């Protein structure tokens, strides 16, 4: 029994140590001066790298900034962002500035880990208003968009040629598409063998479906954060995907053993997909697909799509806030952003850069750029990720007709709300 007591004692000691040490780290350092000479200072940036071009673009940003300010930039590349940033923030070791997906922003803001930015100082009015709005809470700006991506319709030219269908005949609305797809699928079946090539790939993911579900006042998430997927307006919109599945011409990439749209399209398993501009270079370089980029379709008389934007956030506990702000201003300035987006093939978050880079001369990029006007930013409060997880969990059976959409979405709501309630 003596030993047991000792063990308890040592456990108690370690807990105390862990807790006090964790608490100690809480002291925030506000010693940073307002100097504009950054020589000898160190800036830690947290980013993720999507591809080789983004890596090159980032290297250019870093060396340019170091040359300009004399500060040293340390880059932390995240591979599993959600896990790593939480550990970093819990340990008060988060980078001074970091990438922030628009869907994640409301959560970070709510946690109080983001520094408010001076709108005038960072030149808020230079950016597309829809994008800065995505980083604004209660009129205060907490992030600056670095670039943006939009969805467009990608079409495989060779397949259309082989089955003898003109690309111009592709319907411009979902309503017409539903009628058109079965005939087109029949031609694909005839040319390639039954079900070897599917006409259309779609995703069971709010990140792709949100704009449809929000049509005609649909509100998948209530303003208090609760899931509302089984509400009538949302269900009515969701019916579109059910009808799409019912044509027998639409599949999810996973349904045909592919990881994502781009892979399915590149592998020649689907003739059409809605995908972001990040796939453009991959299709051209790696898959050597012969494709055309078309605007998104309209639904209920309105064109729509998604906007994915990533912004720079500044850590509220940063010890080098002036330097951090200087970084944000530098990388989002006109000429630097112009060079960056040309390197990475992403779309600028400022209209003046789009103009200066002459993006509209490229027909495909113009389609993506124009989509900014009619698309919805991927963001909806702090519970979006939770609701999306639940949506992905239950939507398949509803769309396949195994249960009614209503009961599938009811299950999704219940599960998401049970989780949300625990966080309250």
């Amino acid at each position: 029994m003596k030993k047991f007591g000792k063990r308890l004692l040592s456990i108690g000691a370690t807990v105390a140590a862990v807790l006090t040490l964790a608490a100690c780290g809480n002291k925030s350092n506000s010693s940073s001066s307002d100097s504009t000479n950054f020589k000898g200072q160190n800036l830690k940036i947290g980013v993720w790298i999507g591809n080789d071009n983004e890596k090159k673009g980032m290297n250019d940003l870093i060396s340019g900034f170091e040359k300009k300010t004399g500060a040293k930039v340390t880059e932390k590349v995240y591979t599993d962002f959600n896990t790593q940033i939480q550990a970093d923030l819990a340990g008060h070791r988060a980078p001074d500035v970091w990438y922030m997906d628009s869907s994640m922003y409301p959560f970070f803001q709510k946690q109080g880990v983001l520094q408010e930015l001076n709108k005038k100082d960072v030149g808020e009015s230079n950016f597309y208003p829809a994008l800065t709005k995505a980083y604004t809470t209660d009129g205060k700006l907490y992030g600056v968009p670095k670039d943006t991506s939009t969805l467009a319709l990608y079409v495989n030219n060779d397949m259309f040629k082989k089955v003898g269908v003109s690309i111009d005949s592709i319907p411009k609305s979902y309503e017409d598409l539903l009628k058109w797809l079965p005939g087109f699928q029949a031609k694909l079946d005839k040319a390639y063998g039954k079900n070897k090539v599917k006409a259309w790939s779609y995703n069971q993911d709010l990140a792709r479906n949100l704009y449809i579900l929000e049509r005609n006042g649909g509100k998948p998430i209530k303003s208090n954060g609760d899931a509302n997927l089984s509400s009538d307006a949302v269900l009515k919109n969701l019916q579109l995907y059910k009808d799409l599945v019912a044509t027998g011409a639409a599949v999810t990439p996973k349904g045909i053993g592919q990881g994502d749209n781009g892979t399915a399209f590149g592998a020649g398993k689907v003739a059409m997909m809605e995908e972001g501009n990040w796939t453009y270079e991959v299709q051209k370089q790696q898959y050597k697909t012969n494709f055309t980029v078309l605007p998104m379709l309209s639904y209920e008389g309105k064109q729509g799509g998604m906007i994915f934007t990533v912004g720079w956030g500044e850590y509220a506990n940063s010890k080098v806030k002036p330097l951090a702000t200087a970084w944000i201003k530098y990388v989002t300035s006109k000429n630097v952003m112009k060079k960056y987006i040309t390197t990475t093939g992403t779309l600028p978050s400022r209209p003046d850069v789009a103009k200066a880079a002459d993006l509209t001369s490229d027909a495909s990029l113009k389609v993506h750029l124009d989509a900014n006007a009619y698309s919805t930013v991927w963001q909806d409060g702090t519970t979006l990720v939770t609701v999306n997880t639940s949506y992905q969990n239950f939507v398949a059976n509803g769309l396949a007709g195994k249960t009614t959409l209503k009961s599938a979405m009811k299950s999704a709501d219940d599960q998401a709300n049970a989780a949300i309630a625990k966080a309250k």
Partner: protein
Amino acid sequence: MKKGHIGRTILYIVMTIYALITLYPFLWALSASFEPLKVIVSGNMSLIPKAFTLDNYKYMFSSSALFPRWFLNSVIVSVLGTVINIFLNTMAGYALARLQFPGRERIYYAFLSLMMIPAQVLLIPNYLILMNLGMLDTYQSLILPSAINIGNIFMMRQFFLSFPKDVEEAASIDGLSRVQVFFRIVFPLARPSIATQAIFTFMGFWNNFMQPMLYITTPSKYTLTLGLQSFTNQQAGVRWDHTMAASIISILPIVILYIIFNKFFLQGIRMDNEK
């Protein structure tokens, strides 16, 4: 006699079929690493590369000037970690199986129970502990928390439970102390189980991804797994061509090690004695 022959033929056939089942995904990955992305995802890739290319390997090897450094880091962490593990786990396992002492059963179950908490909730506590020990971004952070492996302690204990007692008894009659018996007699004789433990431990260190990802921030301190991962993590769909080449590069050292260790796996006590 004849019946035995038929039995053995059937056995060979079954074993070969199982070998094919086992080998297929591995060969598939190997062959995919020599194919362009388009062929890999087409779904009708054959095991003999149709559009053979070394591009994937060229890409991985030229991806970073730090590549040799990452390899070296992995070797240092894995070798050091494995050596320490072998001693500490074997000693602990031996004590729990073969020595009498008060509290033995309680300690055994205490160790076992520590394995039962899912790792997901320990990630952040462990991160904070290492941070407070000042060990983040060091090799120690990868080696020390894994300097023992409870699963392997447990495995060694079970091995020692069926370890022949007469060997030790004979040795202690020869006047060797208990500690001497362990290091001079038991340790060498436990070769097959220690080799098994060694390969598992080495693999654990070599393939470890979560810990390097959380603890290591300086690129020159990356392990090979983490470094390779930073080049295969793609936003525009998974780059299977690079992923496959990366996975082959990273498992090759283990395969070589296994071939070397294969010899030890089969050297039991009895076999030695009979020779």
